[in-house]
């Protein structure tokens, strides 16, 4: 399959949290996986909140330099001690292409609600290939309409 | 009078039996038109007219339907003593047959008269002086969407009336049994049709008419067996003898040619033509369309009966007769017919006006057409002969490309 050019992408995604587990969007940050695990600069805001004000659905967006094919993994870390240091990247809006990150593994039911980490995956989707399907689709629809017209009511 | 009527019938039988190389299986049908196939054991006889009366309902009510439409001039002369002269000859003859007690007409417990045309409406009243009459009123339009509910209710009325006469109620099970039993007739007739389509030269038009006339008054399963035998014999004979070079297949349409008034068959055949297919209610109409039941509930069965005997009818008494013209085209195409002959029974306006329209429609398609105005009797046979022979000459003169 045809992969898009390597380069900068805006990565978006949502994480859902149990009531009271994440007090505010500030108690949440993203880390690279492996090595030094340094923080990735990301913007986070609560897309939805529980009645107690804690975050229900956090929308996380960050810039991603896609160097190679295949998935890249990040940690989403949260907890009352966690503080996000780096502010969100300013250039995010200027990035044309958007990817979504997905939860890489289903969290085990008995994990600590108060604090924890979540593994997420970013994978480049082959864009051009997708667009290619519109051509035959349009052709078939055209044929259909033509045949309809020829048959009449 | 009855004796004269019998003589007339025997003469007619002899006339058509004369043709050599005729399938032997036709003997059964000759006996049947002598009304020898209905035995007393089969149940009370019930006279019906036209193809509008669902025989299945009659049988389900425990009676045996026999069709009384007559073409006998003797019976006609009897009928004239009561009916005005300038009325439908078939109505006169049929009434005469009942009034004079000819053949089966003397044995029927009651009659069912559909009010398809004006003559039939009055005929019902004339008959009611002699025999109990159940009438079926036919809507003027045979469009099932508008008329089906009414027609079904008419059939229900008929069923009630019949059960009052016979004491048997046509239940769902009885109707189903009757339909499956009667279906054997269509199966056999279609089988014969396929055989004839393959070897159209074996069976003369008059022979097919004989088969149909026998169906008027024959026990259906025996009739079906005989027809199967005939079909197989047609196949064997067809293998044996090739189709003659001067074979001129014709399609016959218009008013019914009722036994024994078969002058037209005689003239056409002696002029070298062969009637291979027809739209006559006296022959094909009554036999080739089956009752197609989709839903075997009682209502579903009655609906199917209504559709078969009403919506599928080609009777010119209905407003829309495009079905009839379409059928003529179909037959001309399938049987490679070289001409169409319309039988205008004198005083049958419906048939006559229909054929007048047909003449114009067929002329535009370049299909030779002849309308023959005639009556039951043989007094005008020479006039008919001139027209038919000229028609045959005309067809034979046509360049082969146009045939």
């Amino acid at each position, binding site marked *: 399959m045809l992969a898009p050019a390597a380069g900068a992408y805006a990565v978006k995604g*949502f994480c859902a949290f149990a009531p009271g587990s994440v007090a505010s969007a500030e108690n949440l940050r993203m880390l690279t996986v492996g090595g030094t695990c340094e923080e990735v600069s990301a913007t986070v805001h609560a897309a939805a909140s529980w009645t107690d004000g804690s975050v229900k659905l956090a929308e996380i967006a960050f810039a991603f330099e896609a160097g190679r094919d295949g998935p890249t993994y990040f940690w989403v870390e949260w907890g009352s001690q966690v503080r996000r240091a780096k502010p969100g990247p300013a250039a995010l809006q200027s990035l044309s292409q958007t990817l979504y990150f997905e939860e890489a593994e289903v969290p085990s039911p008995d994990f600590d609600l108060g604090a924890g980490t979540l593994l997420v995956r970013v994978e480049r989707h082959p864009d051009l290939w997708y667009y290619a*399907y519109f051509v*035959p689709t349009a052709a*078939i629809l055209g044929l259909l309409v033509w045949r309809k017209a020829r*048959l009449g009511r | 009078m009855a004796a004269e009527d019998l003589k007339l019938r025997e003469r007619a039988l002899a006339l058509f039996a004369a043709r050599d190389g005729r399938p032997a299986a036709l003997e059964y049908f000759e006996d049947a038109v002598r009304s020898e196939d209905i035995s007393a054991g089969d149940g009370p006889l019930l006279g019906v007219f036209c193809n509008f009366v669902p025989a299945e309902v009659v049988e389900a009510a425990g009676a045996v339907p026999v069709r009384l439409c007559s073409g006998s001039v003797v019976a006609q002369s009897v009928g004239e003593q009561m009916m005005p002269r300038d009325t439908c000859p078939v109505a006169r003859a049929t009434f005469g047959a009942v009034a004079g007690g000819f053949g089966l007409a003397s044995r029927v417990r009651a009659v069912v008269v559909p009010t398809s045309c004006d003559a039939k409406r009055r005929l019902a009243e004339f008959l009611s002086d002699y025999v109990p009459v159940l009438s079926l009123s036919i809507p003027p339009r045979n469009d099932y*969407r508008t008329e089906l509910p009414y027609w079904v209710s008419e059939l229900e009325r008929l069923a009630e009336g019949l059960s009052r006469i016979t004491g048997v109620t046509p239940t769902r099970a009885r109707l189903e049994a009757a339909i499956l039993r009667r279906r054997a007739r269509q199966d056999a007739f279609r089988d014969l049709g396929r055989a004839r389509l393959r070897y159209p030269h074996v069976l003369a038009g008059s022979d097919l008419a004989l088969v149909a006339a026998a169906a008027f008054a024959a026990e259906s399963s025996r009739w079906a067996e005989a027809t199967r035998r005939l079909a197989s014999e047609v196949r064997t004979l067809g293998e044996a003898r090739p189709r003659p070079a001067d074979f001129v297949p014709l399609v016959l349409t218009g008013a019914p040619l009722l036994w024994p008034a078969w002058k037209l068959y005689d003239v056409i055949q002696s002029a070298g033509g062969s009637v291979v297919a027809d739209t006559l209610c006296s022959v094909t109409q009554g036999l080739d*369309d089956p009752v197609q039941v989709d*839903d075997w*509930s009682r209502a579903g069965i009655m609906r199917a009966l209504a559709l078969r005997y009403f919506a599928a009818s080609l009777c010119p008494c209905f407003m829309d007769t495009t079905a009839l013209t379409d059928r003529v085209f179909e037959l001309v195409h399938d049987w490679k017919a070289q001409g169409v002959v319309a039988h205008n029974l004198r005083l049958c306006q419906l048939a006559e006006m229909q054929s007048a329209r047909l003449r114009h429609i067929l002329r535009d398609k370049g299909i030779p057409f002849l309308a023959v105005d005639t009556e039951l009797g043989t007094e005008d046979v020479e006039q008919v002969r001139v027209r038919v022979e000229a028609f045959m000459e005309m067809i034979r003169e046509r360049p082969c490309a146009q045939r």
Partner: protein
Amino acid sequence: MMRPTAVARWSVQIAAFGLLIYGGFLVKAALGRSVLPGVSAPAGAYSSNTLPQQSIAWAPGDEPAFNFYPPGAACRFNPGGGLFKACIVHMFSENLTWRTPLKYLSLYLFLFVLLAFLFGRAWCGWICPLGTLGDALTGLRRLLHIDHADFSGGFRKALRICSYGILAPTLAVSAFIGMPAFTPYQCYLFLPYCQVCPARLLCPLFGGRTSTLADFTNGISSFLSIASWVVLGLFVAAFFLGRRIWCHLCPIGLVNSWFNRGSPLELRKDQVRCNRCAACADACPMGLDHVVRKKGKAVLNEPGCVLCLRCVDACPRDSCLSVTFWGKQLIQSKYRETHS
């Protein structure tokens, strides 16, 4: 007295039913994994794993074998995911809510359009598992010799309008709750039609999952459960008494019906051979009579016609009705002897 077409159709329907409901297990057992990559929900957004009714949550590995949306499919909520992912209405709803970029759907749209174009509403008449269950109900009715209810043409038109009235709001609501500002409503309104669709109850049930039948965890889900039972009741009644009258209402059938006229799979009629006996109209499970009514029309693919071909079976005139695929004749009506 079963006609060949009827036999063929029953076999296809039963086979399709089995494949759609249970095929997922088999194929995945063979291939180990879904064949096409699916469009997955943004994490945390309501995906079909996490409907308002928690009970409908998927077990991990519940993905279907072929991750796309054919014109006739089993329900999304099959255990084991069934053979295909879901019906087209489900696809539109969930992806509108997720605001999935169109490009990610192009493959699925292409496959759907192709299949719908090739076979039109034959998908409804021959494949749809709901239709198969309904035909079984009809068969039961026939065995009991109960006549079917007849619905007027006006009523059928009304049902068609109603099916637009189901489809349009379904898509509108799905799009609405996809907007960031309204995401909180997803927990009430995600997949609006699925909440009451009888397939959501029946298909998982045949797959061996009863959890979708009822859910009284909260008010909304209780309400929706009861509503879905009511719809299921209507569905059963409609199919038992009204043959396929339901299919005039089905929004999936509606989408397929747009492809019926103009599809290469054509129902044709030779006007000259028609004797107007209307046996075709009597046999039509959709209650249509266009086959006998339409004069001088060769192709009879009406939007309402599910190409079940009962009319071709019922027609007693040789080669009056026929079915062609791109001009090539597949079958034609002929008189069939019941005796002999």
